[in-house]
């Protein structure tokens, strides 16, 4: 790879310095993947620097305001990545621009997905644009409890979320926090209530535990679980996780213990990856958890690494979460300084380190194999499964990949035992669950309930629906709409499965009769069209045709003026949905038609069939 053809464009001094600051000195061990070539990869995967491509592109984008040809050429040279490849990766992500911006300021991203859409995001985009602010309409920014959400991509300075500044907990110094006795966390309305498990440090009556202080975390009982894990030993920890019946909280609900045991049984080196690329529209629980209790994730990851025999952990966090990213980075530094990370942790023989990688605006990178590709410096295109991550994960190695909420559950499982954990919740759904309440409810936010609570109870917890309930989006854009007749539905894995629904990532978004639901459904279709990676035909074209049909359905009356065969519109949508479900590579395509279908079934969109009522 030494004879790469590099164009004549050269980087500016600032671009060169920014890239070198990220890449220089951090070159990791050689990543040589033998025999890992079931689909694509080959020689280009055997590059020990390529995994630094995303950090290098972030550095370039920040200093230059775009991915410049000179900057790409420099990155290509220092990472030994072909310029075309680097360009192909850069163009995959929303947060990287390959056209020179006409300004040298920050860019404000305004969320236009459901919760913000019904709170007037279109007007906010217009208002900012009229004020001369560079604006991009953005997919869900993971702040659905405080619409209209914005995210500011900094030019020459760190990215930031204005709502964090307003809450006074993102001063930039890293020292301020939602601390102080009795201070509530606005995104956690249950703050101060007894009985919380995952949120207990955030919701303490005496005031939330300072998320920037390792001492405060330890005083609140932190790192007791790791001590207990060391006492139990790796197999003992896995036994307890298996016994607990813990299932993944990212959406797929796979048994965590089964995953861990499989990886522990594979030859090393092994990896632990946290999938914090929370991008499902309506989901913000992981952001709230990581901003307010970062040490809990660091401790849980360390336990996971100990249990499966991994020396390295990675946190892949979405690029639009600057505060959570900073809190985690500070927590890693503090834990390392205190000997909770690094070589011979707590005087044991166990070594473990954690590295953070930022996503760059691509929903698909929450799909686990797309996440691996993204982290390795490739386009975030999902891989065919099998092989599964337990055998062929990050860098082709056996990999545990878990959602942050899933991992935080492990702390209590290790401390109290799997049996005690299994006693919480229902027969088929153990423990507690975080739900993301948004839309037309009185008190949007993250709520924790033991499994078994019904949809109606959860809405009541959030102060009830403001207005007459028309529908609830359950599980996110990849989930389904349900009507008011479903308020008695227990939000458990088994009850939702029996009803043909999914808990997904815990989204509960309420809509009343004043909401233009056809517009919401059309926006969901647009979301999938925008977020499809484009790799497989059923999803690349299917999401596009689905969106086009919905636009037609919403905008034109039934009749001969409709385009093409729209007399068959809902039948055609059904055919598209079936092909996407059956033939797409990954879960994005499989679920891209689910919410649309459910909306049509509920009569939320004018699903007019030209020939019949």
């Amino acid at each position: 790879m030494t004879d790469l053809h590099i164009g004549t464009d050269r980087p500016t001094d600032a671009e060169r310095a920014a890239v070198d600051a990220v890449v220089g000195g951090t070159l990791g061990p050689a990543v040589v993947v033998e025999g890992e070539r079931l689909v694509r990869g080959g020689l280009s995967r055997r590059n020990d620097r390529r995994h630094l491509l995303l950090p290098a592109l972030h550095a370039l984008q920040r200093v230059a305001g775009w991915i410049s040809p000179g900057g790409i050429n420099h990155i290509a040279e220092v990472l030994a990545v072909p310029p075309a490849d680097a360009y192909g990766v850069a163009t995959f992500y929303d947060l990287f621009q390959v056209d020179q911006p006409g300004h040298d300021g920050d860019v404000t991203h305004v969320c236009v997905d459901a919760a913000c859409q019904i709170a007037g995001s279109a007007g906010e985009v217009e208002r900012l644009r009229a004020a001369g602010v560079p604006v991009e309409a953005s997919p869900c920014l993971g702040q659905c409890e405080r619409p209209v959400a914005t995210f500011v991509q900094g030019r020459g300075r760190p990215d930031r979320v204005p709502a964090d500044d307003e809450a006074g907990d993102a001063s930039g110094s890293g020292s301020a926090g939602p601390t102080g006795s009795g201070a509530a966390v606005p995104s956690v309305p249950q703050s101060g209530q007894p009985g919380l498990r995952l949120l207990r440090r955030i919701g303490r009556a005496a005031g939330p535990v300072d998320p920037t202080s390792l001492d405060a975390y330890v005083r609140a009982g932190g790192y007791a679980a790791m001590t207990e894990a060391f006492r139990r030993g790796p197999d003992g920890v896995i036994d307890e996780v298996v016994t607990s019946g813990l299932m993944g909280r990212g959406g797929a609900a796979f048994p965590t213990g089964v995953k861990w045991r499989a990886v522990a049984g594979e030859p090393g080196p092994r990896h632990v990856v946290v999938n914090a690329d929370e991008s499902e529209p309506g989901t913000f629980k992981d952001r709230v958890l990581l901003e307010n209790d970062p040490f809990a994730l660091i401790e849980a990851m360390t336990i996971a690494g100990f249990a499966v025999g991994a020396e390295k952990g990675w946190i892949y966090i979405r690029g639009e979460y600057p505060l959570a990213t900073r809190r985690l980075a500070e927590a890693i530094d503090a834990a390392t300084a205190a000997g909770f990370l690094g070589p011979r942790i707590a005087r044991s023989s166990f070594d473990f380190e954690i590295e953070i990688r930022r996503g760059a605006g691509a929903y698909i990178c929450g799909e686990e194999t797309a996440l691996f590709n993204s982290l390795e410096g490739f386009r975030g295109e999902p891989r065919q499964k099998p092989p599964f991550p337990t055998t062929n994960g990050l860098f082709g190695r056996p990999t545990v990949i878990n959602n942050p909420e899933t991992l935080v559950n492990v702390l209590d499982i290790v401390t109290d035992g799997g049996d005690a954990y299994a006693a919480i919740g229902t027969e088929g759904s153990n423990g507690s669950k975080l739900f993301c309440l948004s839309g037309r409810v009185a008190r949007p936010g993250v709520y924790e309930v033991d499994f078994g609570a019904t949809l109606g109870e959860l809405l009541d917890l959030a102060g009830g629906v403001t207005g007459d309930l028309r529908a609830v989006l359950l599980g996110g854009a990849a989930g389904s709409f349900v009507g008011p007749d479903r308020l008695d539905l227990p939000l458990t894995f088994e009850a939702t499965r029996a009803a043909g629904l999914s808990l997904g990532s815990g989204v509960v978004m309420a809509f009343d009769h004043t909401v233009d639901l056809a517009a919401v459904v059309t926006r969901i279709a647009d979301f999938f069209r925008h977020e499809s990676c484009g790799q497989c035909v059923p999803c690349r074209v299917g999401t596009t045709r689905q969106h086009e049909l919905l636009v037609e359905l919403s905008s034109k009356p039934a009749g001969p003026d409709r385009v093409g065969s729209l007399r068959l519109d809902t039948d055609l949508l059904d055919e598209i949905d079936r092909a996407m479900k059956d033939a797409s590579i990954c879960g994005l395509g499989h679920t891209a038609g689910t919410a649309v279908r459910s909306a049509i079934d509920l009569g939320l969109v004018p699903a007019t069939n030209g020939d019949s009522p």
Partner: protein
Amino acid sequence: MTTIDSGRSTGPGPGEAAGTPVALTVDGRPVEVTDGATVLDACTAAGVETPTLCWAANLTPVNACRLCVVEQEGSRTLVPACSRLAEEGMVLHTDSERVRHSRKMVLEFLGSASELDQAPDLARWSAHYGADPGRYGPAGATMDEEVRVQDDLYIRDYDRCVLCYKCVEACGDDAQHTYAITMSGRGFGARISTEFDVTLPESACVYCGNCVAVCPTNALQFKTEFDLREAGSWRPDDQTVTRTVCSYCGVGCNLELHVQDETIVKVTSPDDHDVTSGHLCIKGRFGWGYVHGR
């Protein structure tokens, strides 16, 4: 990094011991393949023809078009024949309603987005599965790209592109290791591109033409073919194909000279040739002007 494996999941080569046998069922018929064979291999062994687009014998499966999907009992979704390894006891159906529906839809989707009038295989399969791209109407998004004519050797007509990745693979890991082109963008906006869409002469392209050779829709064409088509004088039925050995160096690459009106109009190499696997260099692919005294 001195060892290079092809990574292909093909059966044993000459002189290699046969692998472990794998027994499975295709459309009710028992078939046996060897360990490492794909579902596609099993279907072929069962005498079942499988439509493919992004698959080629001389490329690693990219698993993108999903035209070859088959139904596997016990699997929630359909599985891609080209890249799924055959497993003991698999029960496969290649002509179920689900399979026919997905194949029909993939063909319709392709036909509604890209110009396929120079892709006879896809036309044949579209007719077979009853695909009707027209039912999405004329207002739908299409590739909508200008023809890129940037040199005298080959042209790129991305209106015809189906984003099968074959050219990217042939330019990269699977043949040439030049990495001049990539998939860029995302979703329906994805396009094959050089860095910043610079012209081919400005890019890393070495004009081996291996991308042209693997293109299934004629999105990549010899300039000679493009010019003849523009002039209305491209007549494949009047062409002869003559196999010969390249005269430039001592490697011994086989060439197939496609000749119309006693003039070479394009050059290919047999996919199954053990020297080239269908791939050539710029001299063998494009360096035949001297034959005609040019």
